[in-house]
């Protein structure tokens, strides 16, 4: 057993104190620069903060892999969704002409857009992969307009930190940080492969977030809101997922 001397005790004590102080400073700076995810509390908080912090430091502008046309999956998989409610079925019967996307929150020009309105915006397509947290994946072409076009038209106010979005069923809600929202690959998607986005895959409107797992790419989006904090939405954990035990940040 190595000798425990007074000198060693003091040195270790000072080193520990310095380390703890250093961690405290790091924590404060991390919060200031948006490196800490909303679900940072609890026993898994350290891991989540390391993963999200690493993305914010090293991969903030990284592009999700885009594939050549010949890698589009012949057999994509539409994950099971809850049976559509009556209101949705009525809109579907009318070809979704009255589908509304409300854009509000910390924006200069709140607006309500129909699919026709969205289709007047510049069209982008991307051939990216949907990766599910279960482990399966497929590649498809997604056609629509980047979310940044809509947010720029609405003009974000200074201080916006997150974009909150929910589906036609409001209990299905998500947030992404504003950098993710303004990323060129974050796409308000209305077309898939050779036609309109099928309902099974999120039609008529899905917000594709290809740098994260599939559950962030919310289907049937009807509302987008710019916010400076997620503390007052739901349980304040950033999305409905942590309330079911899933991480808010789904880049890994």
């Amino acid at each position, binding site marked *: *057993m190595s000798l*425990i001397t*007074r000198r060693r*005790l003091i040195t270790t004590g000072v080193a520990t104190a310095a380390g703890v102080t250093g961690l405290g400073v790091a924590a404060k700076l991390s919060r200031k620069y948006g490196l800490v995810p909303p679900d940072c509390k609890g026993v*898994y908080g*350290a*891991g*989540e903060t*390391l*993963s999200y912090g690493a*993305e914010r430091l*090293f*991969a903030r502008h*990284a*592009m*999700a*892999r885009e*594939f050549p046309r010949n*890698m589009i*999956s012949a*057999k*994509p*998989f539409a*994950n*099971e969704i809850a049976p559509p409610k009556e209101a949705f079925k009525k809109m579907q019967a009318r070809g979704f002409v009255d589908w509304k996307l409300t854009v509000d929150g910390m924006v200069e020009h709140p607006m309500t857009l129909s699919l026709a309105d969205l289709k007047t915006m510049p069209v982008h397509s991307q051939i990216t*992969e949907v*990766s*599910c*947290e*279960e*482990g*399966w*994946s*497929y*590649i498809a072409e997604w056609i629509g307009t980047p979310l940044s076009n809509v947010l720029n038209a609405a003009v974000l106010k200074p201080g916006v930190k997150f974009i909150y979005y929910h589906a036609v069923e409001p209990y299905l809600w998500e947030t992404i940080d504003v950098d993710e929202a303004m990323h060129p690959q974050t796409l308000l998607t209305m077309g898939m492969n050779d036609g309109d986005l099928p309902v099974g895959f999120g039609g008529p409107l899905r917000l594709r977030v*290809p*740098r*994260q*797992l599939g559950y962030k790419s919310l289907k049937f989006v009807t509302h987008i809101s710019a916010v400076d904090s997620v503390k007052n939405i739901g349980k304040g954990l950033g999305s409905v997922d942590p309330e*079911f*035990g*899933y*991480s808010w940040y789904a*880049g*890994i």
Partner: protein
Amino acid sequence: MIKGGERRGGTIFVLLALGSWYSLPVPTLSPVRKKTASRHAVVVRVTHWLTVVAFLALLVTGLCIVISHPRFYWGETGNVNMKPAFTLPIPASRDTVPTAYKYVMPDENGWSRYLHFEAAWLLVITALVYGAWGLVSGHFRRNIVPLRGERSWRAIGARMAQYLRRAPPDKQEENSYNVLQRVAYLAVIFVLFPAIILTGLAMSPSFVGAFPAIALIAGGKQTARTLHFFLTWALVAFLVVHVAMIAITGFWSRMKAMTTGRATKEEGE
């Protein structure tokens, strides 16, 4: 309500008590002190046990995650509409996956993924510390890389034959790994663990976005997933052999060596 002054006084008292206790002379517990030799450095011991904790957490949570889709594919994509390379003959924890069973397992994917990635960070940070120290201190060169006279298939075969004959180990194996141990540890430290970490990262959309080369090295996202699964079992096989060998050669003395860092020398040395 403890006031500031009382708290300060209490803290000083506790620190003085601890300091006094540590500077008291400790009487020896036995009249004859056993001779011990230093066996494992403190960095080795700490990183070893942290790796044990991380690996067990990763293994358990990994199994919880894999049962949500117990099918494996080669290439970039794979889902229930595509023919798998192979399936596991177990029930799944999601009813969207067809299995031979009429029920689904409990779904533990949520917290499992949280813990899997937290344990992965623990493993990666521990591995970086151990790797850096191992290189700089000469630990790998002295203790893990096979010794100069033993870098041959003949040496490996000879030591294997010695095990199979159940012959006792050589004297120098008391404080130096034999060639089979060195090859095994080399493979685990420099091949299996890096590969399982890289194939894990190759499944992350964000990491692949930042470093697309990793997806190409891994051969595609689904190939990475399948390889990650195979590597798990390679590491589990190592774990079983590792624990068995430790148990056969003196479990508690080995545990003492890997916790206190010292091994008791035999009498008459």
